[in-house]
């Protein structure tokens, strides 16, 4: 060990210096490469856009003509309905499947495993076709007691499972299998101590799942679920194969009559992109909601929550005091 001067600080500077030294004014590094790359990219983008916009085969007037046409708008509505209903089936079903899969009950766990295995093992396109052709397998549906020929009601399969219901079942049941894995990952991500703390307070396993585990798992589940929703919006276009009257069905029907293939496909693209953008924005708000207790703004709003609680308790707006 070398014996140098005593470490520490200059005795005159104990307690920090009295005035702040001059701020650093350095000349920043010049990124010439970035400027050149940016210029090249802007030029290419401009050239591409120009050639596309000026291409006579795009037929802008046709796009405008069909973009807000009633027929197309009704298709957009069906697409949205399919997206949200299928995601609802997927989210609820997925949560059930995930809880079943993690259950100690071997029957529930196996049922969930087989379900996920089947629905992830076959293409959603094929599943749509299967549901669309359900009537081939069972032409009539019966409600009654099996094996004793007691029938309370029966109906034509094609009337119970119309194209919309077939499309919805195919998309929703398929989504449930994928959502199950997302929810399972979310549940596993919650620390074990949380379940133990809840158990030690006398909370039942079900209550613990609902009040403690799932709300925390949501924080992990929401981003990929948003992604799934965006993906679902576009997957719905596959139901055109059973003519479920969604946006894509309408577009294909139209261009098979008038052969305006490219403009009509662009109409579909515009609508899909528009709703994808909306969903992306919506996802941000959901993430903020389920991230409560983890954000940075929380400290500031504690006072607001205290006020709200006081207001509920006394029934008086504390602002008047």
């Amino acid at each position: 060990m070398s014996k140098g001067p005593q470490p520490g600080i200059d005795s005159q500077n104990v307690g920090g210096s009295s005035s702040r030294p001059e701020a650093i004014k350095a000349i920043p590094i010049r990124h010439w490469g970035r400027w050149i790359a940016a210029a090249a990219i802007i030029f290419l983008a401009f050239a591409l856009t120009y050639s596309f916009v000026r291409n006579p085969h795009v037929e802008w007037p046709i796009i405008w003509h069909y973009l807000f046409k009633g027929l197309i708008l009704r298709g957009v509505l069906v697409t949205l309905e399919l997206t949200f209903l299928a995601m609802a089936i997927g989210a609820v079903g997925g949560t059930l499947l995930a809880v079943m899969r993690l259950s100690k009950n071997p029957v529930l766990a196996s049922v969930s495993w087989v379900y996920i295995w089947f629905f992830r093992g076959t293409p959603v396109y094929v599943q749509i076709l299967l549901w669309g052709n359900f009537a081939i397998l069972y032409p009539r549906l019966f409600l009654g007691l099996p094996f004793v020929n007691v029938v309370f009601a029966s109906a034509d399969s094609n009337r119970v499972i119309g194209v919309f219901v077939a499309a919805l079942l195919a998309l929703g049941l398929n989504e449930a299998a994928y959502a199950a894995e997302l929810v399972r990952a979310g549940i596993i991500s919650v620390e074990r101590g949380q379940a133990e703390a809840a158990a030690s307070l006398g909370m039942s396993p079900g209550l613990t799942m609902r009040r403690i585990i799932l709300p925390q798992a949501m924080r992990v589940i929401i981003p990929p679920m948003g992604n799934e929703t965006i993906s679902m919006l576009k997957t719905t276009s596959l139901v055109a194969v059973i003519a479920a009257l969604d946006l894509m069905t309408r577009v294909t029907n139209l261009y098979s009559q008038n052969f305006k293939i490219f403009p009509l496909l662009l109409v579909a693209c515009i609508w899909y992109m528009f709703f994808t953008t909306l969903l992306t924005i919506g996802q941000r708000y959901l993430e903020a909601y389920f991230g409560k207790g983890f954000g940075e703004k929380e400290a500031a709003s504690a006072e607001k929550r205290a006020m709200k609680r006081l207001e509920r308790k006394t029934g008086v707006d504390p602002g008047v005091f």
Partner: protein
Amino acid sequence: MVKAEKVWKSFGKLDVLKGIDFVVYPRQTFVLLGPSGGGKSTLLRCINHLEIIDAGRLWVDGELMGYREKGSALHEMKPRDVSRQRAKIGMVFQRFNLFPHMTAIENVMEAPVRVKGVDRRVAEAEAELLLTQVGLQEKLDVYPAQLSGGQQQRVAIARALAMKPKLMLFDEPTSALDPEVVSEVLDVMKRLAREGTTMVVVTHEIGFAKEVADGVALMDGGVIVEHGPPNEVLVNPKEERTKAFLSKVLA
């Protein structure tokens, strides 16, 4: 209040508890000391059935934990009945385990409202009182992430007390805390002990044991090596292992 009889617990081939016997009477504080891996925490977790024992018997408040005795046969309890038993036992963890998505007061209110069905307003008033008693009246509406370790542990104690438990278990409640906040948690625990709360405490805080314990036990290798009143065990230990442990902790 708590009675353990030949409690045995193994994890796979490893025997963690090898025949533990002890009794804690109401209003007493029982402190478990000993080196890490000696089985103290496991014993504590067995008391409220978070870990299931392999042999022996454990009673809390006169009830056999986790099983029902019918004749000579033992029947496993349904989850609902185990929950009912646990509701009578408060537990405080080394790592606090507060619910991060709920504010301090929501953490404290949750179990009374959801498990006991206490009216929200009543539960809220009680939670406010409990948090005031642990010195957190200013932090009612703050999420756990904004609290220091000492504050979080005090919320956790209030949360356990909100169920009006007959027994409180403390699993190394100060081991994850910064040295300067250990005393704020110990002070709350000392007050509880003096008020006559029945407590089983796993800790390394010898001072706490000396001050408030009615009985201490030193655990090592899955057995209780020595036990007795604190001013005997901690001042004039008879066993070599107790002496060795105390000299290390107090060094």
